[in-house]
């Protein structure tokens, strides 16, 4: 599929590529020899797309996301984010990261946590282009809780604050590593819908790691299924469901077919 797309972002004919991963290999030095977490991963994430990543535990989903975010050292291959190296993109705030637990600073109020990216990393040009923290809290539905400290918020609210913080510098790419993994199903459904709305409003490219087949199918335009030992691309599945999606789409036959296909891929991993 899109694995055969051109490396150079082309105008017109093919969609622009936001994140391009070429032949990526990541090895970790361990006590019992090296562990190959990822081997020869090649994938293109289209600009403005929402790609979910699915795979058995330990297959390297987090590692791939962290490699894109310049958080792990790459052993081989290349990653480019908007045509830049990952380090350059990081310094330019081209991407933002949302972790599994919200990772808020517990001594800062919700709004001050959202403001954190404006206070560190000193790039005035980027920071000038930023949104107002108040607007972002409103975007994630927390306008009334701006002054609340993280321990006064529920898990779902904390994760919304984390999303607002990630969005403040208007990143062109949003990397999310099981952001809703620790939440109950009802909250997760609600945040899934909100994420789709935010994605449509902002046009941000999103790469979203999850353990949940329905979540992957509901959110993703494409689902990147990884296989483990070593981590490699199993298949890039295109989800042909209409946009904008509502939660009820999960009751359609089309959705169930996609989910069944993903499940069978996972079982054969």
């Amino acid at each position, binding site marked *: 599929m899109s694995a055969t797309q051109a490396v150079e972002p082309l105008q017109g004919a093919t969609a622009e590529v936001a994140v391009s991963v070429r032949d990526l290999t990541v090895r970790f030095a361990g006590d019992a020899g090296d562990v190959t977490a990822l081997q020869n991963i090649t994938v293109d994430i289209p600009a403005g797309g929402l790609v979910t990543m699915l795979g058995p535990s330990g297959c390297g989903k987090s590692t791939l996301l962290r490699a894109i975010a310049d958080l792990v050292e790459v052993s081989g291959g290349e990653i480019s984010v908007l045509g830049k190296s990952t380090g350059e993109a990081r310094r330019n705030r081209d991407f933002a990261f949302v972790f599994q637990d919200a990772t808020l600073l517990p*001594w800062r109020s919700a709004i001050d946590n959202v403001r954190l990216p404006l206070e560190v990393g000193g790039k005035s040009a980027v920071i000038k282009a930023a949104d107002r923290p108040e607007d972002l809290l409103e975007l994630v539905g927390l306008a009334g809780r701006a002054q609340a400290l993280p321990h006064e918020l529920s898990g779902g609210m904390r994760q919304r604050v984390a999303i607002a913080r990630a969005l403040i510098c208007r990143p062109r790419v949003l990397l999310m590593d099981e952001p809703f993994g620790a939440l109950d199903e009802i909250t997760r459904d609600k945040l899934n819908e909100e994420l789709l709305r935010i994605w449509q409003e902002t046009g941000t490219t999103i790469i979203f790691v999850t353990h949940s087949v329905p979540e992957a199918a509901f959110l993703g335009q494409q689902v990147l299924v990884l296989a483990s030992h070593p981590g490699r691309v199993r298949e890039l599945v295109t989800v042909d469901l209409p946009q904008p999606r509502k939660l009820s789409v999960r009751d359609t036959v089309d959705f169930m077919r996609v989910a069944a296909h993903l499940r069978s891929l996972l079982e054969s991993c």
Partner: protein
Amino acid sequence: MASVSDTGPTDAATTDTERKARARRLAWSNRLPPALAVVGIILAWQGIITLFGVPSYISPSPGEVVATLISQAPNLWRNFVPTALESLAGFVLGNLVAVLIAVAFVHNRTSERAFYPIAVFVNTIPIIAIAPILVLIFGNGYTPKVIISGLICFFPTLVNMVRGLRAVSPQTLDLMRVLSASKSEIFWKVRMQSALPFLFAALRIASTTSVIGAIVGEWIGSNVGLGALIIEATYNFRSSLLYATVLMAAAWAVTLFSAVSLVERRLITWKPGSVH
């Protein structure tokens, strides 16, 4: 009116005055038991003295101690001031040095490997054994008492501060890296803040031990200060003066402790360890 707790944190704005009133009631009901206990102990003390006819050179009655506190007020005050100043200076100095060294340790592993064993070694020498050495070196003035008081504060603060500065989750560090934060930004915005609860745990300990340090210093070589007064009162069998002096020392330690707790409550409004 009575219970606002079951409405939960959702209607935050409405109940501020009620919350304050409730907090005040709670504070009173918290203070009542210890106050009653203190009164009970004092009554029991007075009772035992009169019941068994304990001579006052062995133990004075509470009444005698109060009388001495009043009659000896100028003498007690004259000796209180040096001790208070020494312990305060020792507290500030010892903790300041400990915090700075902790920062250096966290910044540079090599310096930690080099100096941590020395810090541990100094800590293992009983303060009673160091005191005469310092008095020999620095004479009878304030200096050795301040140093002893500072030394006694130093180690717990160093250990706690190092731990506190390191108590930052790897994920928070990942976040700061994604934000391209500099080392000093990480230090001021994350490490210092997350170390505060650890620091204050140590400062609470130091607030009382610093007074002990100053008094021990005065035992060895001094003719002023509460420590010197304790020695003098003991040798002259002036037990009520001795008790009055000890009370003064305890009152000062409690004052320091309360001051530290007050600042802590002001500075740390969040719940340490509650969120990751």
